[in-house]
C-alpha cells in the first residue's frame, strides 16, 4: 500500500476529485493548508503592501493499494495542472498496514 500526499490549488479540487472518482479512488481525506513555495501573491493592508508566498492550498491524503498508485498519480497530474507556478506537488510513501475501524479488516481489504 502507498500513501499519496498531494498539495493542489483549491480551485482545482473539484476536477481532481471527479478524476479520482473516475478511476475508482473513492476514499481519501483532505484539509486546507498554507503552502510556501514559488508562487507569490500581492496584498495591501492599510497601505502596507506585502507579497506573500503563503498561499491557501488543499492537502489530500490518499492511501491506495499498489496497483492503483500509477493511475492515481497520473490522474492528479493531469487534472491539477495549469502550467503556472504554484500547481503543487505529489509525494508518495510506503504504508505498512491499514485497518478499517468498522470491521477490523486489514491490508488491501481495508481500502476497498
Amino acid at each position, binding site marked *: 500500500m502507498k500513501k499519496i500526499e498531494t498539495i493542489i490549488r483549491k*480551485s482545482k479540487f*473539484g476536477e481532481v476529485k471527479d478524476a479520482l472518482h473516475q478511476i475508482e479512488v473513492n476514499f481519501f481525506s483532505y484539509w486546507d493548508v498554507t503552502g510556501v513555495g514559488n508562487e507569490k*501573491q*500581492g*496584498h*495591501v*493592508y492599510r497601505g502596507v*503592501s506585502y507579497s506573500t508566498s503563503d498561499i491557501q492550498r488543499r492537502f489530500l491524503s490518499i492511501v491506495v493499494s499498489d496497483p492503483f498508485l500509477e493511475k492515481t498519480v497520473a490522474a492528479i497530474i493531469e487534472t491539477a495542472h495549469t502550467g503556472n507556478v504554484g500547481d503543487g506537488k505529489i509525494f508518495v510513501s510506503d504504508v505498512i498496514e491499514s485497518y478499517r475501524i468498522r470491521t477490523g479488516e486489514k491490508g488491501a481489504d481495508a481500502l476497498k
Partner: protein
Amino acid sequence: MDTNAVLDLMWVVIAGILVFFMQAGFTLVETGFTRSKNTGNIIMKNIMDFCIGSVVFWAIGYSLMYGDSISSFIGTPSWFFSKPNEMHNLFFQTVFAATAATIVSGAIAERTKFSTYLIFSLLMTLIIYPISGHWVWQSGGWLAKMGFTDFAGSSVVHSVGGWAALVAAIMVGPRIGKYTKGKSNAIPGHNLLIGSLGVFILWFGWFGFNGGSELAISGEHANNVADIIITTNLAGAAGALSAMFVTWIAYGRPDISMTLNGILAGLVAVTAGCAAVSPAGALAIGIIAGVVVVFSIDFIDKKLKIDDPVGAISVHGVSGALGTLLVGLFATDGGLFYGGGFHKLGIQAIGVFAIAAWAITISFIVLFILKKTMGLRVSKEEEVDGLDIHEHKANCFNE
C-alpha cells in the same frame, strides 16, 4: 415650527435613521449567504452604493422624483436640493433610494466587476428609481393620479430593485459551478448566523421604512402609524411561519435560509398595503408571500436557471409585485374581498406591470451598454480565487 410639524419631522428623521441601518442588514444577509472569499467585495458594494446614492440623490435624483411633474412622467430637475424646511424629507427619500440600489447587489454577488457595479448603482439612484418613483409618489405622477396604492414601496422600491436584479443576474450569468450537466448545485452561504443578524436588522429597520412612510405622526396620523407597525410585524411573522412549514413539508426539515427569506418576503409584500389592510389582512399577505417565495426561489433556480445567491429576485421582485397586487384584494377600502370589486385590483395590476416594464427595459439598456464597454464580469480566475484577493488585494478573514 409648530408642534405638529416638529412631531412629524422628528418621526421622519427617526424612521429614516432606522431605514439607514437597513444597509447594514443588506450587507450581512448578502455576505452570510455567499462564500467567505467574496465578503470584502460585498462589503464594498453595499457601502459604496449607499455613499454614491447619498450624493447623487441629493445632487439631482430627488428633484427628478419629486420636482414638479413633467407630463406626469418625470420631475423637473434642479441641482443640489436645498429647500430649507425639507431636509428631513431628503434624508428619508435618500435612504429609500439607496435601498432600491442595494437590492441588485445580492443577485449578482460573487462574480460581478466592482467598477461596473458602481456605475450601475449610480444610474439606479440617478435615473431608474426616481422615474418610476415619480409616477407613484409624486401626486402628479400618472400612476398616482390613477389611484394606484403603493404606500411604502413594495413596487416603487422593492420591485424596481428586484426586477433590475433579475435582468442583471441573467446578463451577468451564473457563478462557475452553479449549473453543471443541466443540474443546479448548492453553493452554501458561509455564515447563516451573520445572515440572520442581517434579517433581524432589516426587520428592525422596516418599522421605520413602513411606519415612516406615513411621513407624519401628529393628530390622526398617530394611530395610522401604530396600525402600520402591527401590520408590518404580523406580515413578517406570518412569512416566517409559512415559509418554515412549506419547507418542512417539501424538504422534510424546517429550512433556515428559506425561513429567513420568508420573513423578508412577508415584509416586502406588506409594504404596499401596510396602511390599507387590517391585521388579519396583513397576516394573510405574509402567509401568501412566505409560500410564494419558497416556490419562486425554487423555480428561478431550478427551472429558469438564473443564479441569484441571496434570493433577491424572489424576495424583492416577486414578493413586491405580489404584495402590490394583494392590496387589490385586502384593502379594507376598495379591496375585492371587502366588496370593492375588481377596480382597485385592476389599477394595482397596471401599476405592477408598468413598473416592471420600466425597470426591466431600462436596466437591460444600461447593462447592455456596460457589458459592451466595461464588461460585467470578472475573469474566471478572479471568480474562482475570490474577488477579495483580486479586486481588493486583501482577505477579509485572517488569523
